[in-house]
């Protein structure tokens, strides 16, 4: 406590001095709801049980990073408390819990809420109350692309308190489109996609990225969580004559899809979406007989199971941080994602300094980010500006061989391609 007191005294002294020097308006000292002299309260809703519960570990990983930061004294003397609530992936529950977090728990901001439908359901509410909806944990392009736009339901609500973080799904599939046009320009493409916002968003990015060449997609087959498997879809794709296959699905169906492709004695050029391409899932697929050598994906985060990062400082930091979470598997790609996005959150809070208002923090997150994140691939920068609200738009192509992903070429920048 004494330390904090003396810090505040130091800041005050600095301010007085600065003001006395007649400089331009000094750094603002301000607080807001959810900020106390020694604490910052953040909240989130995520699926901790039920069908989407495998994502729940993300929040635990984020909390592990906050614990690490708190152990070092916190952010400008304030420790972060992160309240995590289980919305069982259902929008009405997310709405109820978000209202509770905002109106009863009085959080400063919502951080890394997970799920496209769930985060869409609370977007209007949070923006109407000017509570930051920071770094939502979904690649749905709308959270970046529609920044500042008015809500279709109530045009008086502008979405300028919402921002995403990870590369949008459409951006990722545009990279695939570029890769195909550059390296496989005569490809006949078949797409297996999940019939939800996730799969449809990816498909749109691919189609848009191919532009006038979108007729290269000769067949697309959708499936659903309630489909027994993806076999009939893959049989049709195979029969269509496609020699290139895109799999836009979450991990479990991706694994069975890859195994089925090999079982059908089909050897297309395979593209796997980045959420499901985590190395442990690929090895899982191989154990089921999938032959995926030469499969392509993209990455923007370091893979904890990739030996090339064994001595990397960022990876070592990650391993230290994740030890704070007893239930987290360090090899799970979701966990390094959580730590990476928490890093950005802390970065924003640090940048806010003493001006801890929601408006300022939101402004930094949406317009002033320029961060080198130790957990992301080298040269990937987390960046936003007043004209660009897509924090991460760079990824690198990776190819699978010898039971591991290998970086190919250099970072591809998709900035500015999605309007």
């Amino acid at each position: 406590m004494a330390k904090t007191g003396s810090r505040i005294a130091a800041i005050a002294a600095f301010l007085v001095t600065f003001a006395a020097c007649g400089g331009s308006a000094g750094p603002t000292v301000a607080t807001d709801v959810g900020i106390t002299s020694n604490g910052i309260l953040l909240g989130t809703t995520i699926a901790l049980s039920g069908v989407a519960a495998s994502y729940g570990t993300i929040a635990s990983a984020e909390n592990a990073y906050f614990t690490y930061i708190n152990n070092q004294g916190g952010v400008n003397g304030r420790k972060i408390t992160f309240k995590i609530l289980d919305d069982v992936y259902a929008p009405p529950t997310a709405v109820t819990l978000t209202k509770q977090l905002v109106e009863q728990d009085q959080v400063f901001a919502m951080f890394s809420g997970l799920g496209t439908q769930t985060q869409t359901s609370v977007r209007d509410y949070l923006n109407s109350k000017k509570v930051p909806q920071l770094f939502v944990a979904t690649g749905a392009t709308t959270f970046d692309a529609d920044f500042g736009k008015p809500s279709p339901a109530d045009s008086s609500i502008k979405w300028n308190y919402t921002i995403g973080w990870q590369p949008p799904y459409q951006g990722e599939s545009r990279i695939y489109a570029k890769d195909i046009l550059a390296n496989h320009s005569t490809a006949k493409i078949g797409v297996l996609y999940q019939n939800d916002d996730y799969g449809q968003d990816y498909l749109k990015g691919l189609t848009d990225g191919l532009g006038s060449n979108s007729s290269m997609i000769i067949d697309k087959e959708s499936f659903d969580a309630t489909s027994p498997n993806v076999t009939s879809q893959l049989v049709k794709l195979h029969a269509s004559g496609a020699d290139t296959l895109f799999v836009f699905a979450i991990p479990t169906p991706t694994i069975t899809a890859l195994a089925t492709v090999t079982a059908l004695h089909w050897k297309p050029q395979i593209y796997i979406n980045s959420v499901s391409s985590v190395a442990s899932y690929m090895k899982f697929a191989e154990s089921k007989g999938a032959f995926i050598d030469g499969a392509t994906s993209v990455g923007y985060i370091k893979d904890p199971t990739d030996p090339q990062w064994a001595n990397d400082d960022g990876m070592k930091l990650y391993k230290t941080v994740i030890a704070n979470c007893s239930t987290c598997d360090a090899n799970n790609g979701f966990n390094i994602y959580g730590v990476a996005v928490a890093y950005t959150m802390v970065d924003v809070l640090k940048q806010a300094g003493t001006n801890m208002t929601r408006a300022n923090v939101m402004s930094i997150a949406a317009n002033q980010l320029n961060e080198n994140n130790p957990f992301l691939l080298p040269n990937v920068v987390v960046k936003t500006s007043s004209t660009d609200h897509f924090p991460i738009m760079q990824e690198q192509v990776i190819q699978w061989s010898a039971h591991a992903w290998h970086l190919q070429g250099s970072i591809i920048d998709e900035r500015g391609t999605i309007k």
Partner: protein
Amino acid sequence: MQEFIQLLVSGLANGGIFASLALALVLIYNAMGLVNFAQGEMAMFATFIAFTLIGRGFNYWIAFPLTLVIAFAGGVLIERVVIRPVERAPVLTLVIVTLGLATLVNGTAGFLFGYEPRVFPSPFSVRTVNIIGAFVSYRDLGVIATSAVVLVLIYVLLQRTTLGLTMRAAAHHPEASRLLGVRVSWMLALGWGLASAVGALSGIMVAPVLVLEPNLMQTIIIYAFAAAVLGGIESPLGAVVGGLIVGVTVNLAGAYIPFVGGDLQLAVALAIIVGVLVIKPNGLFGRASVRNV
């Protein structure tokens, strides 16, 4: 044409999965005149037990039968503790209890084992075999083969042994059986134990084909219901035949009927259930029963 044959063959493979679980449903129905909504979850849980045993170092061929025994004991235990108090309650109560059980088992599995997908080994290889131009893996064939073996065993038990007869009598005419000295309650427990073991076998065979996770059986159970209903809820042969038909129909409908497409395949199962129940409630192999007033 090739596509059609492949769809057919893959559909049969799918159908094997549905059939294996449907057999457990049929067994429960024969034992107590009720469909157990928790059958799939119990099968999944038993598979996780096997997974844990293998993880602890047990050889697959020891863990496998050990799990079946544990599953049998578990089924009996559940019947004694959860079902027995409501044995004579109306159908609604029993349905709700089995639903509660399903939720409980699923939640417990998620809590104990986590939601990460797990690899589960199989004695069958992943390699494929060529059948009239279509490919099916040995694992899929293994599922069908095991289901066929279980079918025979169940048929023999129910139709050719005194024990099976006693079980069926206890299910259909509990009062009369009691008068004849049958321990109806224990017949019920036996039925649950056997069904649980059959379910465990289904899970163990199916998990390598799909992915082991708590939600493994969540949609399969509905297809299994469709299979059991189509085949006649009392008939083990019906369960297998029904399973194969459902598997093929779902595949073909998904591929050739644009309205169904790849994402409304479950609606096909729903249509089968409702259609059979409305048109021919006893299914293909069931026998019509007369309801006494």
